[in-house]
């Protein structure tokens, strides 16, 4: 008897991701589908708006990562108006962005993905959450996590104007400089962030790397797929979140492409499937070959792990040290084990903290000159940043008055739509046999999904720390033969 397993938000809401697993007569996995059931159409309703409003409009795509949209939009406006922010303006944007990265990666590691390891993948669902993490690492450590988020939100508010949905980004820079007093506070937060980043890697070392069971899980076939990897790099091919060239490496780790973000349509195309509102980007020069990995498939991933694979190293000393240890431990580059993404995320957190400190102590950071007034007519502007969940591209075209005539957006998680689908299928195939499904198995399937930190807020509303799921097993007539629910992290 063939069966179907639906992993759907517990509240059965539209607007949330959904996983459908089909079993064959023998109870083995025949196929698995990942669906995104919402479309909001920012690309269309922004037409007719003045382009300079986009940093304040597109941040409403997502209340979890509004800073990423705010920055991509501001950079697209620089390009649109053919204007460069003054050095302090650019540095201020980067400083803002590093504080955001520390906050965002902290949320994911401690509330979302981390509990699978810190508490354990087979622990009861009720303990696999942030409270379980606090129980495992201690209350003081838990408060440190909460405080890190709170302090960095304050930095985001100082520079961006608001803690959620910031407003300070403009064509040519930022709307307000920071004072020396504000800088001192930000420097102090950055110092604490560096300590926090180092400590978090120690936590990972103690709890995950010293546990051979976890290391075996990370290295297992269920969580391994060989795709192309994408990420922004600086002039030294080091990971960069704010600026640089897009670099793509093939499944052997060899550079496949390196291009200016404005050339994205030459390199990336988006495939459409009828069962999801979210498109599937792939490498145009390799082609869409379906949900398969390998060198002949244009599928690419764009995650912390992908960024490390696509770069030659990190631009700050402690992060570089961690980067080297990462590849030594996991057997060289590239690493294809998707669960290693959690470790890569902590290395990125440390880089963001170190770079934040560099920027906060840069003598130029308090310069009052944070804007360049544009003088040229607007035309086309493409702005790209590395959002925590993937390369984020905003593409605007306007008339000569700067009124939008065309808008195209490729958001972070969208890049990973195809690899997420494949990861779910691989994990399901490895875990489900003879039709046997239990909570531990379901969690291990969801771990494949979770390593990408999919922020479907951009198309749905899943929030950090929460993805309650319900699983229904139906016979071919649609009758429920098994029913489980599980509270999927925090």
């Amino acid at each position, binding site marked *: 008897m063939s069966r179907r397993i639906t992993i759907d938000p517990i509240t059965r809401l539209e607007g949330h991701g959904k996983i459908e697993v089909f079993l064959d007569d023998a109870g083995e996995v025949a196929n698995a589908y990942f669906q995104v059931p919402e479309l909001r159409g920012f690309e269309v309703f922004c037409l007719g708006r003045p382009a300079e409003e986009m940093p*304040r409009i597109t941040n*409403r795509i*997502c209340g979890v990562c509004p800073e990423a949209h705010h920055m991509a939009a501001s950079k697209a406006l620089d390009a649109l108006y053919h204007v460069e922010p003054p050095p302090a303006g650019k540095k201020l944007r980067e400083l803002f962005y590093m504080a955001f990265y520390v906050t965002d990666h902290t949320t994911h590691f401690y509330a979302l993905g981390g509990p699978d390891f810190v508490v354990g993948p087979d622990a009861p669902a009720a303990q696999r959450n942030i409270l379980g993490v606090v129980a495992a690492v201690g209350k003081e450590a838990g408060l440190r996590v909460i405080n890190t988020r709170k302090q960095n939100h304050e930095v985001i508010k100082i520079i961006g104007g608001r803690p959620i949905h910031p407003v300070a980004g403009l064509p040519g820079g930022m709307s307000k400089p920071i004072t020396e007093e504000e800088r001192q506070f930000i420097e102090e937060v950055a110092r604490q962030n560096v300590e926090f980043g180092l400590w978090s890697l120690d936590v990972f070392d103690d709890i995950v790397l010293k546990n051979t069971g976890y290391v075996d899980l990370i290295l297992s076939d269920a969580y391994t797929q060989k795709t192309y990897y994408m990420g922004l790099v600086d002039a030294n091919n080091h990971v960069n979140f704010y600026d640089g060239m897009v670099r793509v490496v093939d499944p052997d780790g060899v550079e496949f492409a390196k291009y200016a973000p404005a050339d994205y349509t030459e390199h990336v195309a988006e495939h459409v499937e009828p069962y999801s509102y979210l498109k599937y980007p792939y490498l145009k020069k390799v082609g869409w070959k379906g949900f398969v990995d390998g060198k002949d498939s244009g599928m690419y991933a764009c995650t912390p792990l992908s960024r490390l694979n696509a770069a030659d190293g990190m631009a700050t000393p402690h992060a570089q040290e961690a980067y080297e240890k990462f590849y030594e431990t996991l057997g060289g580059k590239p690493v294809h084990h998707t669960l290693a993404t959690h470790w890569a995320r902590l290395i990125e957190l440390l880089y963001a903290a170190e770079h934040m400190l560099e920027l906060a102590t840069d003598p130029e950071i308090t310069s009052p000159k944070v804007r360049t007034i544009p003088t040229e007519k607007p035309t086309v502007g493409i702005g790209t940043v590395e959002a925590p969940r993937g390369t984020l591209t905003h593409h605007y075209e306007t008339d000569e008055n700067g009124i939008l005539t065309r808008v195209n957006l490729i958001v972070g998680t969208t890049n990973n739509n195809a690899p997420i689908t494949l990861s779910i299928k691989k994990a399901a195939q490895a875990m489900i046999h003879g039709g046997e499904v239990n909570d531990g198995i379901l969690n291990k399937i969801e771990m494949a999904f979770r390593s990408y930190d999919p922020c479907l807020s951009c198309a749905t509303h899943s929030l950090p720390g929460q993805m309650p799921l319900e699983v229904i097993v139906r016979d071919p007539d649609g009758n429920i033969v098994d029913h489980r629910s599980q509270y999927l992290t925090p």
Partner: protein
Amino acid sequence: MAENGKPKLALYWAASCGGCEISVLAIHEKILDVAEAFDIVFWPCVLDFKVKDVEALADNEIDVCLFNGAIRTDENEHMAHLLRRKSKVMVAYGSCAMEGCIPGLANFADREQMMQFIYHDSPSTANPDGIEPQTRTEVPEGELELPAFWNTVRTLDQVVPVDYYLPGCPPEAKWTIAAVEAILKNELPPPGSVIGMDVSVCDECPRERHEKKIKRFYRPQEIEPDPNLCLLEQGLFCAGIATRAGCGALCPGVNMGCRGCYGPVEGVRDGGARLISAIASVIDADTPEEIDAVLDTLPDPAGYFYRFGLAHSLLHRTRLAQANGHKVAEPFEEIPHLDPKLAE
């Protein structure tokens, strides 16, 4: 009330960005007080309760429901009706539920335009077979379903009666705390009230103000404003003049004009119309022609005056279309600019 004497609280999100949920969590340590003081019966973002648990409650059993997000799908509408029936007090939490917010700007376009651009015309889409997402798709292993979404974004009170409004995109934590405290002390204002201040953003803004006489508008990238003077006086569009206070004038604090996320000032039904008359009153002009000339320096008046309130405004879609002489705007064609006088 629950058996333990605590009031029952439900929190829900419909079509929203997640920022409201983050804003509820931004009350930090107070969230523990909320968890202590209330019996939280439904909060899909945080707690493992299901819709069927809500369905099992008696009508009016929930004391207060904080509902964020607009109404875009039949699921959103179903949940609005269900929670209304089960709740004594329904609060529209945040700009989407109250006014439609930025996602409500989708009412300038329609579903077909979105499908056409996103799945066919976008510069990165490769779709030689012309595939569009379908509500039902046959795959070799079975059938997959997707929900349909509607053409029009609606506010919560366009679907069910609402008792209170908590404005902001997202609401500032202090007002969330104020609302919770008012509920606990049973000191809620009369039904229909907006929980917040009844003055305008200007009253919270520390910038110096003089008599306003605007001869032209500047766009934010065109000038570097004086950091101490009223932005509107300097010709930068600022909606603070007709927007409810409560945010602490955060945007003017970083030299950026208010865009009106806290909604209209007390007693105003159509915030856009109020904003138009407020802006018109500070224009330095003697004749309608001169007023038009000044307004011509402000592009996209509809998008400025109705940035957050389009879905809730008196401007219905048909009027919008009529105002522009055609049924719907075509992709790549300039979205019609509304004549602000129509809103009066």
